[in-house]
């Protein structure tokens, strides 16, 4: 199997765009004083995975955002998943 074009040819520009979007998002939450939101705290920590030498960076980031507990919770608060697990006391 050989890609029609090098993967970089197909992927660089949209992912350059995505990277600038992330940078702009970080600027924006900083400007609006939302860096302490637990989701953003987890987001900032997740960025460390991007520069690692792991060959499973997508999996590592998904693991990073995941609830590490193993038992079912007592009941639902009827809220949707937020995208980033936080220790209960951190949830706003």
């Amino acid at each position: 199997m050989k890609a029609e074009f090098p993967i970089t040819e197909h992927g660089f520009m949209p992912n350059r765009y995505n990277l600038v979007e992330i940078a702009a998002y970080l600027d924006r939450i900083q400007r609006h004083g939302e860096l302490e939101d637990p989701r953003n705290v987890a987001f900032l920590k997740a960025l460390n995975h991007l520069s690692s030498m792991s060959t499973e960076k997508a999996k590592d980031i998904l693991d990073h955002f995941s609830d590490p507990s193993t038992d079912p919770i007592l009941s639902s608060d009827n809220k949707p998943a937020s995208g980033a697990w936080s220790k209960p006391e951190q949830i706003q």
Partner: protein
Amino acid sequence: MRYIEPHAHMVSRTTDDYQAMITAGCAAVCEPSFWAGFDRTSVQGFYDYFLQLTQYEPNRAKKFQLPHYSWLCINAKEAEDIKLAEEVISIIPEFIEADNVLGIGEIGLNRNTKNELTVFEMQVDFACKHNQMILIHTPHLEDKKKGTKLILDVLENHSQVDPSKVIIDHVEEHTIQMVKDLGYWAGVTLYPDSKCSKARAVDLLEVNGLDNIWLNCACDWGVSDPLAVPKTAIEMKHRGHNDETIDRIIFQNPNQFLSQNPKFKL
């Protein structure tokens, strides 16, 4: 190009979507029962929904010569109310023999609560007792990994579950391997923001192999794309996958799984 859309919530879609799907080569569409975007207040709401899935929607699809199949259950989001869940499960036998019903689904977990888990166990048991295939919804986002493990524990602890007749849907990079390692089918859902992109879906195929895996769009009332599967086929083509491999993923694999129910005919 020919493809099967094994997971689409067509009751939430316009007729234009049916036209677009058949134009793109869709050979069959399958519709699991799901959360309608609001909680139904009684079993009667589910009764009407099951009528819609077994009578009205197949006829709507038939106008476009598109075979329509469905799966029945109470979804995880509304499974917090155990009494309601018991009532809904009690009416499923009335519909299970309908020509287009393929099995029980999409059952699973939403926020990984005790009640959701209880109702999931009840529906797995129901499916086994009625010799039905199972389609499983895994939770969203941060709840997915934990929920997938809880789901696998229930399945592995049930003596009558046949993994070859169970598809665990919405897998991502952190859950696909645990599903495939135990012999279950894996569904990759192409859905904006909360699930998988086209490029990541092809990565999953390249890394985890082509066996026992299907792609689906799970289009519903949210921002979603009923043509996500054929568009991912184009991504595969760009990556250098040949026509046979693409056909295997978007047509032959779902056909192989779904044909385990003799009602599924193309």
